[in-house]
């Protein structure tokens, strides 16, 4: 969906895991808080010792929108942008795939799927459970 998604020192482990199609979130080693996107500190306690932990890839649709006008060239409309609330808590912005755009509702269960990126990384998207 995008040619060159940037990466930085804090987020690199998250992106590297996507090469193996592993979805991770950051975990605070001091208070156990899980967060996404990855940061240099824990928003729960301010701690700076964090690692990445695999998550189940299951979640629910918090909300979604069918986009009918592309914000940039190369995107084919319509497509479904969504907030997915992972079973482990954090919320991801993502796409819903594998069903007609009109076939989605809030709160329905979904499971992670993967879209390959040209550089070997993968982008997590979600499909019906």
């Amino acid at each position, binding site marked *: 969906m995008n040619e060159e998604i940037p990466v930085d020192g804090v987020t690199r482990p998250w992106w590297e895991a996507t090469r193996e199609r592993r979805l991770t979130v950051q975990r605070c080693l001091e208070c156990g808080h899980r967060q*996404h996107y990855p940061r240099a500190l824990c928003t729960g306690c301010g701690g700076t010792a964090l690692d990445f932990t695999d998550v189940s890839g299951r979640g629910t649709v918090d909300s979604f929108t069918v986009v009918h006008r592309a914000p940039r060239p190369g995107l084919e409309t319509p497509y479904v942008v969504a907030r997915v609330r992972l079973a482990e808590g954090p919320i991801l912005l993502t796409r819903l795939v594998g069903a007609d755009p009109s076939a989605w509702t809030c709160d329905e269960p979904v499971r992670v799927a993967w879209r390959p990126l040209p550089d070997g990384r993968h982008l997590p998207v979600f499909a019906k459970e």
Partner: protein
Amino acid sequence: MTAAIAGAAESDLGVTGKSVLALQSQAVTRALADAGLTLRDVDGLATAGVSRFPAAQVADYLGLRPAWTDSTSAGGSAFEMYVARAAQAIDAGQCSTVVISYGSNQRSARSRSLGGAVEPHVPEAQFEAPYGPLYPISYYAMAAQRYLHAYGAEREHLAEVAVAAREWALRNPAAYRYGAGPLTVDAVLGAPMVSSPLTAADCCLVTDGGGAVVLTSLDRARDLPRPPVVVLGYGESTTHTSMTGDDDLLRPGSFASGRRAFAMAGLRPADVDVAQLYDSFTITVLLTLEGLGFCGRGEAAAFVGDGRTRPGGAFPLNTSGGGLSYNHPGQFGVLLLVEAVRQLRGECGDRQVQGAETALAHGTGGVFSTHATVLLGADR
């Protein structure tokens, strides 16, 4: 010391063919003339959306060397924030006369983009932009989708916000849609879908425009030609920038900013005679009505459903026609203040709310990222 708004004005609106700084100059000079003041009286300046150093840029253009400036960058709510900062600066004696101004030529310059501008170093560039959300529309669309789902509301309830805004705009000769005729619920629902459930008619206008207000102490404002509009209270809340940064789409920062503003003013929502709530999208209004306590959570759909916010209704809302039908120059916050001031002065002609003594202006910026509420009152 209490602060007051002593002058208010719009720049040219619509499709102007003017530069940002020309629109700024119009707004400032007209607001100062309204206040019975001149540029020489100005020792404080707050503005945004001009360049890298907005206040310095406008000060340079106007030939000012202000003792106090603010360019807090918060999108559409910044101007309500400036009222708070200016009142504090005047109270502290740092300056005596503040101009809050804005101008945009986004329609003439065709500078608006559907995806917004995501800087490559922010997390959204990695974790949101790849999915192609429209910025900011898709966030508000997701809030609207969640709203319909959680509260059993219908798209018709969203549409009523746009219909009511048009009714007001038909009474405002400065409105972009003045003379466009009434808008129907069916027309809103049938407009091209942009980011479901929001159609083009659920979205604010894209126009040129601008405005300015002049603040000084209430004591001094009483010696100036226009009736002072008193700053009664203010409150803010800044919650997130990313589209996943707020856990609950249906509980935006207006809940906190409104509570803070009402507490400072010693007022309750029922005391407000006329409200100017940022209407970037129809859903913005429903959630802000709930956030500010004009109705309970999940009740805004029913609250607007009986024409309550239309002209002649019990709750006059966005009496200029709002961002949906009057003007939306990218950051609408200053024009919320201008309309609130005019209502409290009784200058609004066919759209005047009779006897309005207390007004509320609520600005929203980004993707419900920033919120600022200002309560204003007639000096009676």
